[in-house]
């Protein structure tokens, strides 16, 4: 994970605006990649990196709102901040509906922009972390045997070892063994942690 150096993608067709905003964003230590052409940006930017996207609404050829739609359609998870010279209520509504994280008017105040960017980056990092933890939990869950999954389901449902043994027609000792194994495989240190991390996955599998 490249959380250490989040990258801000700045897309504006106006070179002066692009350079000055890049300089301003750079002063707080954020790395900026400027793009003049939204098409080139869509083809070339790093979707895996942590960061945020600053998008001008009014550009020749392809509008910022279209770019936003494309990004959302492609499942890009980096937050998008829209910039516009004359924002109408309608345009603002469309942007938020399409999934913009923020909608700012030009000329934009430095504090407003930087705060929005820092929020966006924090949000992205958190979402990536959640995503990461989620993925790891899934991987560990996948290692469980069928019997261990059954036992986990009943543990999450709040049954004691004795009750689980009765429900699955197993001896309490065998249940105890499964329980120890699945705690080890899922790297859970307490019952509370186990339930917090895996209850959703168990529900998901029961449902599916």
């Amino acid at each position: 994970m490249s959380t250490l150096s989040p990258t801000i993608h700045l897309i504006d067709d106006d070179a002066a605006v692009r350079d000055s905003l890049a300089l301003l964003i750079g002063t707080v230590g954020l790395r900026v990649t400027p793009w003049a052409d939204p098409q080139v940006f869509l083809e070339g930017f790093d979707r895996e990196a942590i960061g945020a996207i600053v998008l001008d609404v009014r550009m020749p050829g392809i509008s910022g709102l279209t770019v936003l739609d494309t990004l959302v359609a492609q499942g890009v998870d980096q937050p998008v901040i829209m910039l516009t010279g004359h924002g109408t209520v309608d345009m603002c509504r469309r942007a938020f509906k399409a999934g913009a994280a923020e909608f700012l008017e030009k000329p934009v105040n430095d504090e407003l922009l930087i705060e929005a960017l820092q929020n966006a980056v924090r949000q992205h990092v958190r979402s990536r972390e959640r995503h990461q933890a989620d993925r790891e939990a899934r991987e560990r869950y996948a290692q469980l045997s069928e019997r261990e999954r059954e036992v986990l389901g009943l543990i999450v449902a709040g049954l004691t070892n004795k009750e689980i043994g009765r429900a699955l027609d197993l001896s309490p000792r065998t249940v105890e063994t499964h329980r120890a194994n699945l705690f080890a495989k899922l790297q859970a240190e307490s019952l509370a942690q186990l339930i917090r991390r895996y209850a959703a996955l168990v529900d998901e599998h029961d449902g599916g």
Partner: protein
Amino acid sequence: MRASGGSWRWWWLGGAVVSAAGAVLIARQAIDAQRALFETDARIVHRLLSQQAVQHDAILDTLALLQPGPPAAGAQPPEQRLPALYPHILAVQRRDRDQAWPDPALAAAEAASRRDRRAALAPSPDGDTARFRLVLAAEPTSYALTIAVRGMVPWAEWPMPPDRSPVRVALVRGAQRIDLQAGDAAALAGGSGWRFSFHKHLAAASQPFDVVAERQLGWAQLPWWRMLGWAAAVTAVLALMAQLQRQRTARRRAEELLRLGQVARLNTLGELAAGMAHELNQPLTAVLANTQAAQRLLADDPPELDTARSAMAQAVAQARRAADVVGRLRAVVERPAHRAAEASAGGVDLADAVRRALHLLEPECRRRGLAPEPQAPAPVRVQADPVAVDQIVHNLLMNALQALDAVPADARRLTLTVLPAGGHGELRVADSGPGIPAEALTRLFEPFFSTREGGLGLGLSLCETLAQGMNGSLTAANRPEGGAVFTLRLPLKDAS
């Protein structure tokens, strides 16, 4: 004008119906009036003739009562003076006791008179149907009057001019018919139109004649002039109403146009403000970002002086850019003509202007897989404002590129031709796009007319204004082989 054509049809139809209904009413009123007049006249005629008939009875009664004795020899009997008093009494005859009537018809009449106790008719001895004899039996002497029917009419009291009246009046007794007034024989024989007739017995039982009056009112006697006058009046009133209606429509249309004009002006201001906002926001954004970045860089410890300096230089450049935008706006609002004269001492090379615009639009061209080059066999220098020319060329190229989006990549052609034509330099921008829809062709240069969704519709309008301001022109057409061609003509530098 289809709607107004339809309304005209209704006006005509309404006019025809009202005219016809009015004319029928007028005709009916006229016929009724003529009928009433006829009946009044007929009744008067009947009364007058009846009075005469009654008078005959009275004369005979008087003679029978007075019984003037036999005249002295040589002297005239007194009753023989009657024809002198009454011209229609042609003769008075008497039959003294023990004498006989010279005519058996008179004897028969006297027998009838004696039987009915009133005077009785006898035919004229010479068969003249216009006469009759009236006999009253009395003692000792009976009397007979010979009466000329036509003479018994009191013309002085007659209600109609006898020689001109269209009414035929006759006394009828069985087959005997005595015409008193001929009337309009031709009309009565023709029988077209309306026939009035009147039959009534004379009010004297001794003279059983029928008074028969007839009149034929022909079509020609209808009050055509009044009917025509009515139709003319209806037409005049309708024409007046239609005229008022037309005036009202015209006034409403004028008001609508005025309102549209005001809306258009407001729109122009709105679009101008939006365009200004964008054009000014870009440099202002850069100025603000640069100065705020510089502030932050100077606040660093140690301050990053070089970067801050360069940011400030950028801010200055962008502030100038904002000022240029304002200046350009003013230049657009003013006419560019006088600028053209002083700005281009050496004239503007059209091919160069095209190359400059192509350079700016290079990414746009590349994205569409195009690499157009101006075809200019010889340099063409025009008398024009270079900024305005750049603006026009840029707009035309941008339009053409957008038009080419509508066709597949391998069908995209953009041909840019520069050549002299007469006293003008000509730039033709021809694309292989879908062309200009016929209905758009005439409105293409109207402000706020755009075929692009979300287009402001100001680009071509502004270009045309600029071209005309430099004594040039901008025209659009569809190419026979498909696509559109825009032609910019500007006066040649050497020509002026």
